[in-house]
């Protein structure tokens, strides 16, 4: 359902798709270039494949999946540590369902649970605080992954724990910020794209203004988009208009939900409980100040400080998740894809998370058996 409450005529989406193709073909005729746009939100990756937009636009618009799925971008060593923290007695590890199947170097949370570890899926991080209150004799650890949409909610959980003085609650936070990674993609990784399809829900928190640097520093256009077919198609249409006119701009195509200044209440609480830190991204290495960790003032709720978890350096595999999230490789270009690496036996996180580019490709795009 789009963020409006009357049925959208399915004919509009079909017609929009036709217009997008016309506009894209016109651009290619003029420039010889197939327009390429990168989505940096896993839900976009998923929705573009699921609704069939990616298939319809194939050959006309190149849609490149960027680093948008928090599970996929999480460094292997962090994943190993989050699984390791579940391995001790008297602990309850709470997580979003997304993390359950992610393969660690040794095993996944799901297999730890199978072996009797207390691993619980929660919908809201605040539920983990409640579980901590109900189990005062156990340590309850929440695995806090996510981008800016999720971090305020993680902060709300710490706020609640602090207010109620729930001493047996802590969070293993490994969160990611959108702006630093966009900059990294354009400078270090030098991705070849014509514009960004910007993440609608992250933008709720950040606001339109957060992307101005794309124009100022890189002349790189972007359109903020929702997740319905009409929303995504109209956003791609606008991107095509922008590049056709060669007037780089940031356009908010999700005005009903995203405000120019973002959600300031969410930003405030986010920075009250979290502070910027250097984060390691899978396949990209450490990007300075690209994540948020629990503020020193609240380190009693920081699981990384509270528990001594040691994990070795992960073994290298042929998995190309790192290239995938930079948009450098497509799933079909990975030697493991669909053979050694499938949703049932994932090797890299891009195959685990349903919004990972490999899983989405496996589920919706793969042509062979």
């Amino acid at each position, binding site marked *: 359902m789009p963020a409006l409450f009357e049925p959208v005529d399915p004919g509009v*989406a079909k017609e929009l798709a036709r217009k997008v193709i016309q506009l894209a073909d016109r651009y290619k005729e003029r420039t010889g270039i197939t327009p390429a746009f990168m989505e940096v939100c896993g839900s976009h990756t998923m929705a573009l*494949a699921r609704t069939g937009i990616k298939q*319809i636009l194939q050959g006309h618009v190149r849609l490149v999946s960027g680093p948008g799925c928090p599970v996929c971008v999480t460094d292997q060593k962090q994943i190993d540590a989050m699984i390791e923290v579940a391995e001790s007695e008297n602990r309850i590890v709470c997580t979003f369902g997304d993390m359950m199947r992610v393969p660690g170097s040794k095993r996944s949370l799901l297999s730890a649970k199978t072996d009797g570890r207390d691993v619980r*899926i929660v919908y809201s991080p605040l539920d983990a605080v409640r579980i901590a209150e109900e189990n005062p004799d156990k340590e309850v650890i929440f695995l806090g992954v996510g981008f800016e949409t999720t971090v305020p909610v993680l902060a709300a959980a710490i706020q609640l724990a602090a207010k109620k003085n729930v001493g047996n609650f802590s969070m293993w936070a490994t969160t990611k910020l959108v702006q630093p990674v966009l900059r990294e993609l354009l400078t270090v990784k030098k991705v070849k794209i014509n514009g960004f399809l910007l993440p609608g829900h992250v933008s709720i928190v950040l606001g339109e203004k957060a992307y101005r640097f794309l124009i100022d520093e890189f002349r790189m256009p972007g359109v903020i988009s929702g997740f319905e077919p009409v929303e995504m198609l109209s956003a791609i249409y606008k991107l095509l208009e922008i590049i056709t006119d060669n007037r780089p701009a940031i356009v908010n195509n999700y005005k009903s939900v995203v405000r120019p200044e973002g959600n300031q209440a969410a930003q405030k609480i986010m920075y009250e409980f979290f502070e910027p830190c250097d984060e390691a991204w899978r396949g990209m290495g450490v990007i300075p100040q690209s994540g948020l960790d629990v503020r020193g003032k609240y380190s009693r709720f920081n699981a990384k400080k509270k528990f001594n978890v040691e994990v070795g350096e992960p073994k290298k595999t042929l998995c190309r998740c790192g290239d995938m999230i930079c948009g450098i490789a497509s799933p079909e270009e990975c030697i493991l894809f669909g053979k050694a690496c*499938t949703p049932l036996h994932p090797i890299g996180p891009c195959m685990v998370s*349903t919004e990972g580019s490999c899983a989405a490709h496996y589920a919706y795009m793969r042509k062979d058996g």
Partner: protein
Amino acid sequence: MERKVTLACGDGGELAHKLIQQVFVSAFQNQDASRFDSAFLSLESGKIAVTTDSFVVNPLFFPGGNIGKIAVAGTVNDLSVAGSIPLYLTAGFIIEEGFPLEDLRKIVRSLAEEASAAGVRIVAGDTKVVEKGGADGLYINTTGIGVQRAEHAIRPGEMQEGDDVIISGTVGDHGIAILAARGELGLMTDLQSDCTPLNHMIDKVLESGAHVRMMRDPTRGGVATTLVEIAEDFGAAIEISETALPIRNEVMGACDILGFDPLYLANEGKVILIVARNDRQRVLDVLRAFPEGRNAAVIGHITGMGEGRLLLETPLGSRRRLRRLSGMMLPRIC
């Protein structure tokens, strides 16, 4: 009598006798059979159909049913969709020590009522009690016995291009009703599980003379997994349309919240039928005359025989391939 099931109830002695008499025999009303170690059944000549299924449901009671009802519906439907006439059931109970007797009574009563409504007799049973912690409340196994239809059989061999794919009602009700009943994820819904025996409805469809090629009940793994299996087993290219799928708003809403795909949610009272195109309306009319079939709809068709595969037509008109459910669905936030 005690208010809870004790280990002694399963030791074959006096307490076990009491439990069986007071809870099971009284519900199943077959004193005759209970005097022998085996039941004796009369079957018409021809092929016998047998199926067995074990039921583990959490929670045991949920809106629209309980484990007893599912234990009948699941097994009766397995017989019925295979084109046989269900006649008898056996029921085995594994009960955790300390299980409330009143709950057991309710479950057994419900099992008996459903069996009677479905027109099948419960002819043998077994009860075991395991130590506390040895089971999660209660498990039931039922085995169903039926006879293959002599007339109006299903004919999978005649499956062909142009055949229609029909579903007897809305998709995913059971999956979401159970999830909400668990209460863990905070979903609140008035949704009821669809669990119900379908044999009377299926009988009427077959007796209408419609050419039914194949039937399956889309339980675990949902509509997509079931159709992938049909496609692969019979080498049929099947195409279904996203916009044609009957889905309740509440199910759609819950799926949106949790990031689930309704095509992979379990159903316990639905049947998928592959029927000759000319018989489409006749089948729909029969199904829609039953309360459990009133939302029946054509959801797709067979586009060719040879390579078995399932495609979904999106509202935008593009097609993508559907596969079996990979592992269980987990709620996601990203």
